[in-house]
């Protein structure tokens, strides 16, 4: 599909937990500024793939490259440093921190100050703090969450928590954003909003997005390309139209007799 090196490349990635092979020989790519979907029935290994990409797990075999460099042995925070940000299937905010601080903490990677500066509190430190407050406010206002910025994150509505998690991930300035089932638990109207939001983010922040999602409407509606997993193996790859017509995918989702 594309000529340049992909942003993210998985080559024959396998991971075994004892006797269980959770992901087996998966190869996949995500290009710069591409919106890619990763789908599959329950237990197909989608979240495991996410955890492999973000360094939570190390692959038993195969290699993962991000921006042309192998990611083996890097810890999750080091991958975030290199430009991979993520959200979680079951929202993981910092519940007792305010909405504002949830986002501000994520600017962390681009901080010039450290522990010592927070004690000396010199003019440089002061300036940076003011600037960070400004940028946090700006980011929150793009998604109109500034009205609740002083509330603890746990007091937000479910939909707002989902959005806050995405905003927080954006504050790390990623090149690749991984969204783990962002539409889970949303009603149809919220899902439409979410689709608009994801497309808006991709355009505004010029990044690639890898989307794990159960909801076919969401995936088919916005993704440019889709990878399909079943039992830890990749069974198909293609545009939404190709995936919709793929017999293996239909068999995986609806059973053999429908294929």
């Amino acid at each position: 599909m594309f000529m340049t090196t992909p942003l993210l490349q998985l080559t024959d990635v396998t991971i075994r937990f004892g006797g269980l092979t959770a992901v087996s020989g998966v190869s996949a790519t995500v290009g710069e500024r591409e919106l890619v979907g990763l789908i599959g029935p329950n237990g197909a290994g989608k979240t495991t793939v996410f955890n492999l990409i973000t360094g939570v797990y190390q692959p038993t075999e195969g290699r993962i490259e991000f921006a042309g460099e192998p990611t083996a042995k890097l810890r999750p925070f080091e991958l975030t440093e290199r430009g991979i940000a993520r959200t979680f299937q079951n929202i993981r905010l910092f519940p007792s921190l305010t909405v504002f601080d949830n986002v501000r903490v994520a600017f962390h990677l681009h901080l010039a100050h450290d522990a010592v500066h927070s004690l000396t509190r010199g003019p440089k430190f002061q300036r940076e703090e003011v600037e960070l407050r400004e940028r946090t406010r700006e980011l929150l206002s793009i998604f109109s969450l500034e009205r609740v910025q002083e509330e603890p994150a746990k007091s937000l509505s479910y939909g707002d928590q989902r959005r806050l998690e995405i905003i927080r991930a954006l504050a790390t300035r990623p090149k690749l954003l991984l969204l783990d089932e962002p539409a889970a638990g949303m009603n149809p109207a919220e899902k439409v909003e979410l689709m608009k939001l994801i497309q808006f983010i991709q355009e505004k922040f010029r990044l690639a997005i890898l989307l794990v999602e159960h909801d076919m409407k969401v995936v088919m509606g916005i993704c440019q390309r889709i990878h399909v997993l079943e039992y830890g193996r990749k069974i198909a790859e293609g545009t939404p139209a190709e995936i919709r017509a793929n017999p293996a995918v239909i068999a995986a989702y609806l059973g053999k007799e429908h294929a």
Partner: protein
Amino acid sequence: MPPKSQLCLLAALAVAGVATAFAGRMDPYFLDVLLSVGVSVVLAASLNLINGFTGQFSLGHAGFMAVGAYTAATLTKTLGAKLLPLVGGQPWVLLPLALFAGGLTAALAGFLVGAPSLRLKGDYLAIVTLGFGEIIKVILQNVEFVGGALGLNGLPTTLNPAWSGVIVFATLAAPMLTVYVVWGLLNSTYGRGFLAVADDEVAAEAMGLNTTRYKITAFVVGAFFAGVAGGLYAHIKGTLTPGGFDFNKSIEIVVMVILGGMGRHVGVILAAVLLTVLSETLRKFGDYRMILYSLLLIVLMLTRPQGLFTWPLWKRKAA
């Protein structure tokens, strides 16, 4: 113009200076309690950084206190006769240096204990620090150089006119410095990382925070101030025995942090003051004091699990 927080610190240190000048006219018992309160605040505020703000569970604060106490006491007493002439015979120079050295050795011990165990998530730290406290006690009981089980006696105290001023000033200034450091560390974008680690380590890591480093930083800074507190304690009491730094002592500090409300600046300071004064007034009941402590904890956990001093007035706000 320095920031407001530093002006506050300077003002507080000035108050400590004035109080030191009047120390000679204070009732000796009152002065003794005041100094004990100072040590407790240092201990509680520093443990609050580890257990409260960063969400780890250390049970080894008495162990770090012992390391600092014995280091400082060795420098002022055992080696004091040699070292004092080197600094012009000035306790005003030797004591701060000894306290700093005590803090550094405790911080080093904290690093050695924390670096391997803080990589792990969960309750390992509690078990490791518990073991560490016991090990330190046993080591001190068996090292003749520091007096073995009998401990060290005859340290310079406030009864010694040459030392009195610096001991009082250091004991009043240390809690202010500790509170400033803990407050300063937390009130910055960098420092919000400690709170993030406490809230959700996995999410913090995903946001690019080196969670291990945060935990070790909190632990080492906490151990440093526990060491300083130990050094102060040594020069208030004048005697050190390994038994004084047992598990009960660690628990006492943990109780202060829980009672004050984990991760609350003002609450934990108030709890440290309250419990120290309370335990002084309960001294006549001797060992039964610990029964009262346990009862207090049980009642507290049933009625105010979030801590005693946690009114909205002091809630963590976006600074």
